[in-house]
C-alpha cells in the first residue's frame, strides 16, 4: 500500500528513461497502488455479495416479499398529527408521506427559532453588561452539556404533561391557551376570495423590490450615491399585500378558541409533542449557534473596528457594514452543520411519540417487516435533505465569500 506520490509538486529529477533504475514490479508505487485498490474493491464486492445472499435467504425463510408494493396496502393505524388528510384507512405510502411532512415542518420551524434565539444569545454573551453576558453563558453551558433526548423527555413528561386539563387552561388574554393537550392559537380566517389579490400583490412587491435593488446597486456603483433599497424594498414586499388587503376592506377575522366545560373549541391546536420537540430542538441548537455567532464576531480583528471608527462610522453602521459581513463568512459553514444536526436530531421525535418520518417508519417496519425498504426510505430522505441544505448554504456561502485575486 505504499504511496509515494506525495511529492507531486517537487520537480522530478531529470533522468531519462534509459538511466532511471527500473524498480521491480512489487516495489513500483503505481502497481502497488493498483494492487491495493483492486484488493479493496474485490474485498468489498465479496462482502456485499455475502450480505445480499444472506439477506435473500433470510427473507425467503421469513416469507417477506421485498419491494415497494406494501406502500399501497392499508396502514390501519392512526397518526396523532398530520398536515394532510389521513385516517386509519389510508395506505402505508400516505403514512410515510405524513411522517416526511411532519419532519419537514419541525425542521423548518426549529431552524427559524434556533437561529433567532442563537443569534440573540451569541450577541448577549458579548454584551458589555456583565450580568447579561454571564446569564447568556450559563444558558449556553447548561443546555449544551445535557443530552437532547433528556431535554425532550423533560419538556414533554415533566413540563407539558402535568399542565392543567383543557377546561382549566393557562391562558394569555384569552387568546393563547396552554394545557396538557398542547398550545391553542387563534386561527386566522381570510374572507372568501380575498387571498388571490394579496398573493398577486406579494409577487408584484417581490419583483419591484428586486428591480429596485438592481437599480440602487447600479446607481451606487456609477455615482456613489447610496439608496436605502433594503428598507424601501422591504416596505414594498410587506406594504403592497397590506395595501391589497386594506383595499378589500380588511376581510380577516380571527377565530379564537372558546373555553367550554371540558375542552377548548376552535382555534389552531399545536399538539404537545410538537411543542416539546420544538422547544427542545430550538433551545438545544440555539446554544450551539450562540457559540458559533460569538466566535464569528470575535474572529473579526480589532483593527476592523478601529478602522471603521477612524472612518467616522458609528457603532450601528460599523456592525452592519463592517463587522457582521465579515463575521458571516466565519459563521456560515458551522451554522450549516448545525442546521443539518437539527434536521437529523428531529428524528428523536420517536421518543416522545411525535409522528415524524422515523417514528412512522418504525411503526410501518414493525407491522410489515419491510426493514430494508424502510431503512432505504430513511436514508434517501435524510441524505437528500442534508445535501439540499448543504447546497443552499454553500451557494449562500459562495456569494458571501471573500473574493481574492
Amino acid at each position, binding site marked *: 500500500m505504499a*504511496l509515494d506520490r*506525495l511529492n507531486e509538486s517537487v520537480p522530478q529529477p531529470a533522468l531519462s528513461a534509459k538511466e532511471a533504475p527500473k524498480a521491480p514490479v512489487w516495489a513500483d508505487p503505481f502497481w502497488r497502488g493498483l494492487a491495493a*485498490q483492486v484488493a479493496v474493491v474485490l474485498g468489498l464486492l465479496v462482502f456485499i455479495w455475502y450480505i445480499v445472499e444472506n439477506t435473500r435467504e433470510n427473507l425467503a425463510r421469513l416469507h417477506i416479499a421485498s419491494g415497494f408494493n406494501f406502500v399501497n396496502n392499508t396502514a390501519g393505524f392512526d397518526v396523532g398529527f398530520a398536515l394532510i388528510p389521513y385516517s386509519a384507512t389510508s395506505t402505508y405510502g400516505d403514512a410515510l408521506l405524513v411522517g416526511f411532512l411532519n419532519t419537514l415542518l419541525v425542521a423548518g420551524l426549529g431552524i427559524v427559532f434556533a437561529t433567532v434565539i442563537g443569534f440573540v444569545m451569541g450577541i448577549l454573551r458579548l454584551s458589555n453588561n456583565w*450580568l447579561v453576558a454571564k*446569564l447568556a453563558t450559563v444558558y449556553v453551558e447548561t443546555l449544551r452539556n445535557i443530552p437532547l433526548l433528556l431535554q425532550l423527555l423533560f419538556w414533554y*413528561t415533566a413540563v407539558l404533561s402535568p399542565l392543567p386539563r383543557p377546561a382549566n387552561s393557562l391562558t394569555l388574554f384569552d387568546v393563547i391557551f396552554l394545557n396538557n393537550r398542547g398550545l391553542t392559537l387563534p386561527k386566522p380566517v381570510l374572507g372568501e376570495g380575498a387571498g388571490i389579490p394579496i398573493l398577486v400583490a406579494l409577487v408584484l412587491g417581490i419583483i419591484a423590490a428586486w428591480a429596485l435593488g438592481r437599480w440602487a446597486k447600479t446607481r451606487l456603483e456609477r455615482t456613489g450615491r447610496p439608496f436605502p433599497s433594503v428598507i424601501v424594498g422591504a416596505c414594498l414586499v410587506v406594504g403592497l399585500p397590506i395595501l391589497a388587503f386594506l383595499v378589500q376592506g380588511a376581510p380577516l377575522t380571527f377565530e379564537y378558541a372558546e373555553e367550554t366545560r371540558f375542552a377548548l373549541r376552535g382555534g389552531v391546536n399545536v399538539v404537545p409533542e410538537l411543542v416539546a420537540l420544538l422547544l427542545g430542538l430550538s433551545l438545544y441548537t440555539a446554544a450551539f449557534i450562540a457559540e458559533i455567532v460569538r466566535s464569528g464576531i470575535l474572529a473579526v480583528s480589532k483593527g476592523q473596528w478601529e478602522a471603521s471608527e477612524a472612518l467616522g462610522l458609528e457603532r450601528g453602521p460599523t456592525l452592519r457594514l463592517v463587522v457582521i459581513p465579515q463575521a458571516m463568512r466565519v459563521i456560515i459553514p458551522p451554522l450549516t452543520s448545525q442546521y443539518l444536526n437539527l434536521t437529523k436530531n428531529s428524528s428523536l421525535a420517536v*421518543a416522545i411519540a411525535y409522528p415524524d418520518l*422515523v417514528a412512522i417508519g418504525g411503526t410501518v417496519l414493525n407491522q410489515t417487516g419491510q*426493514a430494508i425498504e424502510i431503512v432505504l426510505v430513511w436514508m434517501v430522505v435524510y441524505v437528500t435533505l442534508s445535501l439540499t441544505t448543504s447546497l443552499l448554504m454553500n451557494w449562500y456561502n459562495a456569494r458571501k465569500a471573500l473574493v481574492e485575486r
Partner: protein
Amino acid sequence: MATNIPHYVRSQSTESLPPPVAERGVVGWLKRNLFSSIGNTILTLIALWLLWEIVPPILNWAFFSATFTGTDRASCDGAGACWPFVNARFGQFVYGFYPVSQRWRVDAAVVVLLLAMVPLFLPRFERKLAYALGLLVVYPIVAYVLFLGGKFGLSHVETSRWGGLFLTLVIAGVGITTSLPLGVVLALGRRSTMPAIRMVCVVFIELVRGVPLITVLFMASVMLPLFLPEGVNFDKLLRALVGFSLFSAAYMAEVVRGGLQAIPKGQYEAAAALGLGYWKSMGLIILPQALKIVIPGIVNTFIGLFKDTSLVLIIGLFDFLNTVQAGLSDPNWIGLAIEGYVFAAAVYWVFCFAMSRYSQHLERKLDTGHKR
C-alpha cells in the same frame, strides 16, 4: 536678577488625587459593567428581575423545601423536591440490573482503570504513548472478563442485565476507543491518491453523516440479523455497539481530515525528501502534528458521543437515561419526573462539562505557538 524673583513653580510633585468615587471600587465596577448607559441599565434591571423570578423558586424547590430522607413517596410533603427517590434507586441508576452481589466487579474495573491511568498524568513518566497504547489493548480485555464473567470463577452476567450509568460508560468507552483509530483510517483513505479507496471512504463517511444516529441504531438492531447467515446471532448490546462505533468513526474521520488538511505541504514534501514511505511519513511526521491540532475537535466529538449514548434508549437498552426513565414508573415513586430528569441532567452535565474544561486545558498546554 533671577535670584531675587520668587518663583511659583512647584519643586515637588504632589500626591495625585484618587480617581472619582464613581470610577473606582465597587461603584466604578457597577457603573462600567451594569449601568454604563440607559439601555444597559434597562437590560440589567430585566436580568435582575428574571433572576429574582427564577433562582429563588428553584433553590427553594431543590434545597430549602426539599425532602432528603425517607423511604417512600409518603415521606415527601410535596412542597419541594423528593430526593429520597433518587437515593432509593441510586444503585439501579448506577449499575442497572447487574446482580447486587456482583456490583463490586464494576467498581473494581473503575478502580483498576483509574490506577492504571495514574502514570499518564505523571510528568516524569517517559514512555506515555507506548504505555497508553498497551493500556488500550489490555484494559478492554480485563474489563470484558470482569463485566461478563464466566471465567476465573466469576459468575456469568449476561449483557441484558447491564445497565445504568455503567452501561452508558461502556458504550461511550467502546465508541471512543474504536472511533479514533477507525476515524484516522477513514480520514487517510479520504485523502488518499488512490481513486477507488477514496471513493469508498467518501461514500461511507457522507452516507453515515447524512442520516440520524437513530436510523443507524435501528439498522444495526433490525437489519444486522438479516445480513448474517441463519443461526449466527449477535448480542443486542454488541449490535448497538457496532452501529454506534461506525457512526462515531465517520464523524471522527472528518475531524481528523481537518487536521490533515491543516498541515503545510512542506511537511509532506520534507517527509518524502527524507525517503520515508507512506506509512512512515504519516505515522512519524504528519499524524502526530495533525492529531495535536485537532485535539479540541476530537474532545468535542467525544462529548457529542457521550450525549448520544442516551439514544440507545430508543432501541430498548437500559442505559443511564432509560434506567431513570424506568424508575419514574415505579408505583412507589409515582409523579417524580422532574426529580429524576434533573438528577440525570446533572450527571450528564458534570461529565460533559468536565470533558470540555479538560479539552480547553489541553488546548492551552499543547499550544506551541504555530498559529498565525
